[in-house]
């Protein structure tokens, strides 16, 4: 390890924390270089190399975890990079979940019938760089690191959307990349503005220190009203344009409609795993002293998202768009439940528990549905339509069962997605009973949408009409992957106690 004068600038903790991130960056760069020297037919090598990068990164993370184990106190929080990155339990759990999600992305791409430009060097590098940014967002405890990593996520995901199709294609992927770029960067800019105001008040860039100063100022009534107004406006922009809390942005259903399943998994399953730890750090810790300003925003944005998402999903003809609106509806439900925890001096544990129980279930169900979508599509070159599911049970029984399990989990039937919903509704009922009733009502409307799909899959008449439609294009590998995700949804629904205990451990409850 480093000695002498440099030891104060680069400590062993810095090394352990930065190693998984540096490895991801090195593998991303290496894949880009390798891709220039390989023929197109060898592109699978890029995918396997990226998977190797994930394995190395996971090994480095486990090393950091083992180093922070204390004989008496168990896992101890590790600070690194001048206190800007904190490896706590939330960061650790979210990083592991993100590594698994990214592995699913590569496995889908490697083993399914991939599109032409999937697994190109730029594609694999963009996935790894997006993952790097996501891990930094989850672990960042400093405004500068948080903003820089958010921008990296936005740029890498835009690139991913753009390069998943050939450069000369007239497809809509460039429009999708453009919308994601503008919405994501506007969100980062609005967050930068909130941070600049916070810095002006507190003189700190460390989030927890700024929160402490803000709380003191709120107690003495020294915070000007203009500050609160501008923060409210900026927070509205952040909530409205931040990808996973996407009620106001139209890019997401649009971009997911035509995107490859692997890109959909990265966007729809990866982003909530980043956004909710970030939302809790940002709104539940740093800006918690001004909760009276924030809660009405959560309620308005959450209701908007829930209502629009639940109603719009009933009208969709494309399966990817259906799932995107379903995710918007879920984001609204989560945001309403989250607002229910903003009642006391500290966020109520029930709301946070519900959020962290529901988000992984949501990510698993969405990843499974998107991974399954090319297997049920009637045309290999297009994403699946809702109509392609008609009579699926009679054509491809196994896929139909898997899809039913995943949709049921999304709907909140007693599988993995049930317990998080139940806990969130409980928290909301205690804080705002009327909102809990509204959230329950729109969940029922969303349930109708999911049930409609399930009933359509059982439709024997439609199966006869669809005679001659090419059968599934799945490989046994990708089916096994979806089977694993469905099994996790089933098991987590049946045995919720271990999941609940884990989330409590993660949140120090």
């Amino acid at each position, binding site marked *: 390890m480093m000695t002498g004068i440099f030891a104060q600038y680069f400590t062993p903790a810095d090394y352990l924390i930065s190693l998984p991130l540096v490895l991801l960056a090195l593998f991303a760069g290496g894949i880009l270089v390798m891709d220039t020297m390989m023929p197109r037919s060898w592109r699978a090598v890029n995918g396997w190399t990226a998977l190797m990068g994930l394995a190395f990164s996971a090994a480095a993370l486990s090393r950091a975890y083992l180093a922070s184990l204390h004989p008496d106190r168990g896992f101890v929080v590790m600070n690194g990079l001048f206190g800007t990155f904190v490896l706590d339990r939330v960061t650790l759990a979210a990083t592991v979940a993100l590594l698994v999600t990214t592995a699913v992305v590569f496995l889908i791409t490697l083993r399914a019938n991939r599109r032409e430009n999937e697994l190109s060097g730029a594609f694999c590098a963009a996935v790894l760089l997006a993952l790097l940014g996501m891990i930094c967002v989850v672990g960042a405890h400093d405004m*500068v690191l948080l903003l820089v990593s958010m921008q990296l996520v936005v740029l890498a995901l835009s690139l991913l959307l753009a390069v998943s199709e050939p450069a*000369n294609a007239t497809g809509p992927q*460039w429009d999708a990349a453009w919308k994601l*770029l503008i919405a994501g960067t506007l969100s980062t800019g609005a967050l930068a503005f909130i941070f*600049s105001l916070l810095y*002006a008040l507190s*003189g700190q860039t460390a989030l927890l220190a700024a929160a402490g100063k803000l709380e003191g100022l709120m107690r003495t009534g020294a915070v000007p009203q203009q500050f609160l107004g501008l923060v409210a*406006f900026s927070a509205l922009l952040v909530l409205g344009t931040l990808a996973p809390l996407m009620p106001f942005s139209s890019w997401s259903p649009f971009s997911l409609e035509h995107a490859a399943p692997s890109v959909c998994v990265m966007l729809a399953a990866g982003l909530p795993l980043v956004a909710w730890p970030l939302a809790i750090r940002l709104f539940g810790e740093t800006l918690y002293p001004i909760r009276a300003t924030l809660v009405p925003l959560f309620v308005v944005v959450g209701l908007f998202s829930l209502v629009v998402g639940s109603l719009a999903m009933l009208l969709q003809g494309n399966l990817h768009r259906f799932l995107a609106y379903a995710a918007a509806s879920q984001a609204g439900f989560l945001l309403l439940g989250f607002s229910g925890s903003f009642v006391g001096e500290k966020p109520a544990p029930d709301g946070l528990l519900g959020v962290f129980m529901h988000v992984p279930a949501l990510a698993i169900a969405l990843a499974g549905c998107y991974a399954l979508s090319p297997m049920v599509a009637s045309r290999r070159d297009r994403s699946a339509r809702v109509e392609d599911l008609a009579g699926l049970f009679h054509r491809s029984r196994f896929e139909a069962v898997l899809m039913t399990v995943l949709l049921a989990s999304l709907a909140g039937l007693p599988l993995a997605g049930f317990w998080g919903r139940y806990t969130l509704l409980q928290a909301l009922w205690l804080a705002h009973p009327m909102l809990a009733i509204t959230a329950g009502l729109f969940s029922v409307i969303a349930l109708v949408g999911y049930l409609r799909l399930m009933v359509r899959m059982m439709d024997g008449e439609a199966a006869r009409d669809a005679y001659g439609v090419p059968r599934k294009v799945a490989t046994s590998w990708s089916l096994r992957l979806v089977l694993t995700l469905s099994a996790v949804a089933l098991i987590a629904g049946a045995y919720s106690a271990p999941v609940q205990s884990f989330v409590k451990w993660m949140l120090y409850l």
Partner: protein
Amino acid sequence: MIPVAILLLQTGGIADLTALVFAIAGGLFVLGAATALFRRDPLLRVMGVVMVFAAAALNLVAASGLRGIHGQAFAIFLAVECAALSVMAVAVLAARNQSGKDGRS
């Protein structure tokens, strides 16, 4: 804008000027956000987002007169983020236009 603000802050009258700069930054932020959200021209949208970043940078530079040098370092990071956005936006727009679009979103 950032060097101009630094220059103004260095020439004195810091408290009054800071309040003025905060007000300008607030206006710039609202204007930028409105441009990015409601204009249809892609270049104007990019400029709107850049204005939002510029407003944040202006706040940081103004606050650094009262709070120390960190704000100016933070502002430089924001300027770099803006540069990254601009490069990416130009690349995406060029590719989008090349793939047969008219450049309007």
